[in-house]
């Protein structure tokens, strides 16, 4: 597989191609973090996050690749790791000053969402994820999930979203959800 082919496959939402990239550049990307005072865990974390960013940009069609994939992903890794180092630095200063804890990304809401998404069923979950995160077109969603046409995909997406909304609403009060 050459670069172009891999990128095209990723653009089409081929997860196997992403796994291929992941393995291919694992050593190179994790080294960047590990030689900059990061552990292997942190390195892996940053690299995975970077690939998720890359994936999202590629599948949504927002990315026109002008460099090699590795160069692009490397720069995301650099940015993410720089941010993480800054965050750590801030955290250690604040820990000295007071016991202020940084508010994490509402774990309660995440739990609610996970639960609701699990109740949705595989196809609905995929439709919504492909639509909102991967930002695939209705045509791409139809192709990937084997729907007859884009109208089926549209209807599916609409119904699945409605179902998800209902689940979120019925099980949890808005206050719980938003707090």
């Amino acid at each position, binding site marked *: 597989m050459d670069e172009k082919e891999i990128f095209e496959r990723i653009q089409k939402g081929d*997860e*196997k191609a*992403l*796994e*291929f990239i*992941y*393995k*291919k550049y*694992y*050593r190179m990307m994790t*080294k960047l973090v*590990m030689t900059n005072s990061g*552990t*292997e*865990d942190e390195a*892996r*974390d940053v690299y*995975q*996050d970077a*690939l*998720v960013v890359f*994936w*999202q940009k590629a599948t949504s069609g927002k990315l026109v690749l002008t460099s090699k994939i590795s160069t692009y992903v490397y720069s995301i890794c650099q940015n993410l790791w720089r941010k993480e180092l800054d965050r750590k630095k801030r955290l250690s200063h604040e820990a000295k000053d007071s016991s202020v804890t940084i508010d994490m*990304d509402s774990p309660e*809401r*995440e739990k*609610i*969402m*996970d639960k*609701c*998404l699990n109740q949705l069923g595989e196809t609905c*979950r995929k439709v*919504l*994820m492909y639509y*909102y*995160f*991967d930002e695939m077109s209705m045509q791409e969603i139809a192709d990937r999930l084997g729907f007859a046409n884009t109208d089926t995909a549209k209807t599916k997406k609409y119904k699945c979203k409605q179902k*998800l*909304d209902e689940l*979120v*609403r019925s099980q949890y009060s*808005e206050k719980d*959800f*938003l707090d």
Partner: protein
Amino acid sequence: MSQIELIEDYLTNRMDDGARSAFEEQMNADPQLKAEVNLQKGIIEGVKSARAAELKAMLNNVPIGGASSAFIGKIAIATISAGILGTVLYFGLKPTASEEIITPTEEITTEQPHTPSIETPKEQIETIAESIETQPVESEKIKNNSSAEVVRPKKAEKVTPPSIDVLDLTEDINNNKEEMVAPRSTNKPTLSASTIEVELDDSNKSYSFHYQFKDSRLALYGPFDSSLYEIIELNGAVHSIFLYYNDSYYHLDQKEHSVVPLIMIRDTKLLNMLEEYRKKN
């Protein structure tokens, strides 16, 4: 356009600037609308982060190791090796599990001369006991093999057990000893359950060469008893099952609950891989 569609367009940046500011104005004047927008925002963000987490988990399950860059094929071969062992175990343990299985045990075992079927269950039990002790040592060994500058992970629970598959492979290819495969296969709990029950049925004339999964059992329709067949399970990130029959390979979709015709695999890459592996065993 319904309100929900407007909200969605707003949140997914599908509004032009004019519509956007008009909507924001409306939102500021209407607390109920604002609350709804916030709720929708939370839901959409939730879907997004769930997908990001899913992708990350997928990557985290990708075995990393070895210096080679031709990973995909090799890992698949390694997992097939474990899968075939599962097949052998199945036939070894339950030679007469079903009267409909005509394939004699000997025929299978002649292909696997290193694994006498009677001894296999005993080995299995021993290696399960051993694997508790041996696994950490192996992990370390893999670490050392794969990279010199590896820092030992602190948060063990986040780490995918380091690339046992890949190590499995190199040793498998170099030594090709059954006993190398046997203990390792027990490291993968999924393999002990890789005994798919097979039913043969050539009574129905409308199904000449078909299959179906019912209650997680595999039913093969057609004149299968006349020739040797083999079920090959792949226990990688994606669980796949193949049928080897009459020098051809067929993919079996475990989600297929209705009777469907068997379709021959023609992907030469995959075929070569499956073929190469079968020869080695």
